[in-house]
């Protein structure tokens, strides 16, 4: 059973546009929701993360919106740039767990056209 579902699988956006990637989770015990960014030939790296006590977190052009009742969260990339072209993974986990694992979505390949 997939714990975190991510959509779309791929996304093409014009430079300057808004990129939106959505994720949904099942387990209400999750209390940590990060997004990872992966460039070709590199490992994923943490982009931004949110806890369920807030509904939105913004870092520069990147914003996470969180809807606890719907068990959904999304990544918004404002003013998308060609340099944002990468694969994005959402994830969910339990901060208090000693095992420390994350459950990842299947990823979204974002292409930003100049």
């Amino acid at each position, binding site marked *: 059973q997939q714990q975190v579902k*991510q959509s779309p699988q791929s996304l093409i956006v014009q430079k300057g546009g808004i990129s939106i990637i959505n994720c949904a989770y099942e387990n209400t015990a999750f209390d940590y929701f990060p997004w990872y960014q992966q460039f070709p030939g590199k490992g994923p790296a943490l982009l931004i993360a949110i806890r369920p006590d807030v509904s939105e977190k913004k870092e520069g052009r990147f914003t996470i919106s969180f809807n606890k009742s719907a068990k959904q969260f999304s990544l918004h990339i404002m003013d998308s740039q060609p340099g944002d072209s990468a694969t994005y993974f959402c994830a969910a986990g339990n901060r208090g767990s000693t095992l420390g694992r994350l459950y990842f979505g299947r990823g979204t390949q974002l292409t930003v056209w100049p």
Partner: protein
Amino acid sequence: DVKVTQSSRYLVKRTGEKVFLECVQDMDHENMFWYRQDPGLGLRLIYFSYDVKMKEKGDIPEGYSVSREKKERFSLILESASTNQTSMYLCASRGAGLGTETQYFGPGTRLLVL
């Protein structure tokens, strides 16, 4: 900066060979993880470890084993490589406890089994 290194970037092996993938982290992290990444399937957890000599199965452990004899080193072993194990393998590490949720990934090993 946290550094996670993987022993090889590219590896070509024959069916039936025993394959060792090595991962080393330099941040004294308690938790280490092995994932495989395949197009459209995202990051799938194979095994993880929360302490020396301790291991937990992830979502797809079949055909793999792991070893963690030292805190900084986590090895993934393919006992008898098969063509369906051709994939990108990613290692990650993180600390234990609250505030250390970020997983730091290595650059990956692309394994081809012929």
